[in-house]
């Protein structure tokens, strides 16, 4: 594999600007690498080679004209296949949208186009972002590049694998209950979910409206901050997007930890967390102390209700968001339907996979007459309490340190028999989405099987800079061995 493919965006950007390599060369190198290893990784649903080369060519023309370029110009990137790309199939890894081509770009896609990025492909995922292993994809299963017998995590499994396997320099994913952070941890890359509202959701095919956020998966924290700067910003097309005062994310990258207060919540280290992961978190805490930070005990007791709260709210919103897939206007339509009811029933029975149907049924039930108060409304009240938990904790610390996942990557099929087992994999990540907070997963070594471990840093709302700062400091401290041997 071309060593170019192993490099970070910031290093490659330097080379491009110095004209040491052309954008076309860089894209070709990645396309060649994809061709070589993709059959053994399956990161992509669609590889957009022609588009990529066109985009790279356009960048090279700009360079030749001496035009000023963004820090991401010419950098090959993957886009999770639930983010709308104008003219490029966007399937959500579902039979329902297997041939759906959006006539518009998501706002983040438009921003990355403006930044002259190169779109190398649409990344595989769990169908409609529902899952934690990418095994729920209608098309294919993505393999963890660190160990191809194992799942890459989910639902942004393809995005994480593409970065880990160096098939793309960075990727966009989406995170509703951990779908960026958990696969990032599983594959040993950086993954961040920004504060809810920091990045526009316009064009992100909705799963759970009050929880979804788009975010970057990258090789290092600097790249993460760079991508976040490009995609963040209030969008008039998304009524839930926010203005952020401080978007100088690169400026936040600082190795100095003096005065930083790192909160350690006991509830996140109690039972159910594998030993090597617990160890990694505690090592991280020690590293922070060595760097001058203060470790503070905090308590987040509502963690015990986070999973139910999450599954009730997300399923309810999903049942409504996915109701539009009825075979009438676009997407899959079942054949041999004799009347309207058959059209709806057959299209949705045949078009959706099992996990999607499971959640739609759960969500419909939770919202139905007679049950709304006991389930949906109650879950929203629990949500308020979870938010308050974090608010109290943040009175005593700046950033909270937890595991990202209770376990490292498991083997294919190990958890797919029991949906509830799969849901438990999200225990460390869901409360972050419920509270709308920013959080990042940082690779922190491997377990005895060589499988990556991620630690999670959670910040207060709109404190994405603090999260990046803490992550950068830990990353640069070289506390953990870098994860090598990715891909071929």
């Amino acid at each position, binding site marked *: 594999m071309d060593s170019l493919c192993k490099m970070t965006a910031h290093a490659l950007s330097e080379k491009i600007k110095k004209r040491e390599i052309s954008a076309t060369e860089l894209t070709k190198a990645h396309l060649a690498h994809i061709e070589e290893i993709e059959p053994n990784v399956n990161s992509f649903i669609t590889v957009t080679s022609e588009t990529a080369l066109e985009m790279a060519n356009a960048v090279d023309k700009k360079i030749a004209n001496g035009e000023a370029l963004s820090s991401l110009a010419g950098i090959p990137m993957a886009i999770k296949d639930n983010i*709308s790309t104008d003219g490029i199939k966007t399937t959500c890894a579902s039979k329902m949208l297997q041939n759906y081509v959006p006539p518009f770009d998501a706002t983040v896609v438009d921003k990355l186009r403006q930044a002259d990025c190169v779109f190398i492909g649409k990344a595989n995922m769990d169908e409609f972002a529902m899952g934690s292993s990418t095994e729920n994809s209608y098309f294919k299963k993505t393999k963890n590049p660190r160990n191809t017998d194992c799942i890459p995590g989910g639902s942004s499994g393809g995005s994480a694998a593409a970065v880990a396997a160096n098939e793309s320099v960075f990727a966009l994913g989406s995170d509703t209950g951990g779908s960026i952070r958990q696969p990032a941890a599983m594959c040993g890359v950086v993954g961040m979910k920004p504060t809810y509202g920091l990045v526009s959701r316009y064009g992100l095919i909705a799963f759970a409206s009050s929880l979804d956020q788009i975010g970057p998966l990258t090789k290092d924290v600097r790249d993460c901050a760079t991508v976040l700067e490009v995609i963040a910003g209030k969008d008039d097309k998304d009524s839930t997007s926010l203005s952020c005062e401080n978007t100088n994310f690169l400026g936040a990258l600082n190795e100095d930890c003096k005065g930083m207060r790192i909160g350690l919540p006991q509830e996140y280290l109690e039972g159910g967390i594998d030993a090597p992961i617990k160890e990694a978190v505690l090592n991280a805490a020690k590293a922070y102390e060595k760097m001058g930070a203060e470790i503070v005990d905090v308590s987040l007791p509502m963690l015990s209700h986070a999973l139910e709260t999450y599954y009730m709210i997300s399923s309810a919103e999903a049942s409504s968001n996915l109701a539009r897939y009825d075979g009438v206007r676009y997407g899959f339509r079942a054949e041999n339907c004799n009347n309207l009811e058959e059209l709806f029933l057959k299209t949705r029975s045949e078009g959706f996979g099992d996990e999607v149907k499971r959640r739609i049924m759960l969500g419909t039930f939770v919202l139905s007459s007679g049950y*709304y108060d006991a389930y949906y409304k109650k879950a929203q009240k629990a949500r308020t309490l979870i938010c308050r938990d974090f608010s109290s904790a943040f009175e005593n610390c700046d950033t909270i340190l937890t595991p990202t996942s209770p376990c490292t990557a498991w083997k294919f099929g190990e958890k797919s028999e029991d949906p509830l087992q799969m849901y438990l994999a999200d225990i460390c990540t869901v409360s972050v989405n419920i509270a709308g907070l920013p959080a990042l997963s940082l690779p922190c070594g491997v377990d005895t099987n060589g499988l990556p471990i991620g630690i999670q840093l959670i910040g207060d709302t709109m404190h994405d800079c603090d999260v990046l700062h803490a992550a950068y400091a830990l990353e640069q401290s070289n506390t953990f061995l870098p994860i090598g041997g990715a891909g071929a």
Partner: protein
Amino acid sequence: MKYETVIGLEVHAELATNTKIYCSCANQFGGDTNTRCCPVCIGLPGTLPVLNRRVVDFAIKAGLSMHCDIASVCKQDRKNYFYPDLPKAYQISQFDLPLCYDGYVEIDTEEETKKIGITRIHIEEDAGKLLHAEGANFSLVDYNRGGVPLIEIVSEPDMRSPEEAMLFLESIKSILQAIGVSDCKMQEGSLRCDINVSVRPFGQKDFGVRTECKNVNSFRAAVRAIRYERDRQIALLEAGETVEQETRRWDDAKGMSFLMRSKEEAQDYRYFPEPDLMPIHIDAAWIEKMQNELPELPQDKKRRYMTSFDLPQYDASLLSASKGLSTIFEEAVQSGAKPKTASNWLLGEISKIVNERVIDATEIPFDGKALAELISLIESGTISGTIAKQVLPKMFDKSQSAKEIVEAEGLAQISDEGAIIDLIKEVLSNNAPAVADYHAGKDRAIGFLTGQIMRASKGKANPAVIQTKLREVLNEMKA
């Protein structure tokens, strides 16, 4: 047993904003199918709604003009159900926190001015339109109407007769038109109503079982549907049966309603707060601004017409309720016409033509000045009242003024005494029997002879001059 009818109405009015409620597509009637749509109002995956502020402006104005309280905080909710004309499979509406509530509207019945309560007014989006081709095994859907902003006005069950319901609907229409919030053209679907009817024996405190009837597409259809439902329910009760709570569909052509959904089949809409939209905060400043932009309301106009122009309540009521008629009326009076005369023309001949042509009074192509001119032509004796009635339709068709039409077609009244005497003498010489009748004391002959003279003059002879001169000539003859 005598029964009392209890009626409540739910009126949906399309708002006359420039763009749709959640996207920037044009809000206009008609157009080629599926040309006024965008990813947002078709509900393409990944799209999000953005609330059009003008919709809230208009809803506040509607609420204020109906004496409602305006919510300081309200939200939008999703109403979930599957149907091909509903692209997202949910309608964004308002469930438990409507924008306006606790208001009323006044209607003038024969006996009194009655207050009909307005329970609530809320904002929501319209669905597309399904087109069913006759005999085809498919239907087509047009999403131009999808996302058009609506207000839903829910009345208290305060009406007691189909006539009161009609007055209520007319009142709503005149208010919404007056404040410029909706053009209320039922034939274009910009005003729709569902009726809720129950009956109870006179004197009973509890309400009877209520049924809902949809697909009522005109005010007269509403009256017919209410009458039918009242009669149907009374017939059931008299036969010892019970009225079932159901949703029915009105078929105006057949003059009947049919069962649509029984209580058991009632849909569960699974309402929950719309997570893609922020709560709406309405402060006192916003309300005051809307209040200041409100024009004179129909009821206030009615009172002013009665006091300032000395119009009877009947005239004042009808004129003030119509934006088109009241505008012309005030212009005509300003141009010198006597109020009662202008009113008579507007409520009489002009309204007749408006109804014949099935247009709205706002579409009358001439203004009050032109009406005042027509009236002055009569008062100056240039034309007779009869001729004026011929000139009026021409004022609708041509862009000429009354004066121009009279000149162009030579319709001026003949008032010259000499000319009239010649006419009289001619007619008398052709009608000897009638002359003889008159001389024999049958005064009725005057009427006949006058008619003949009018005919001979093609209606142009001045009737007042005929009156005086005819008897003169006849009496001269006798002598």
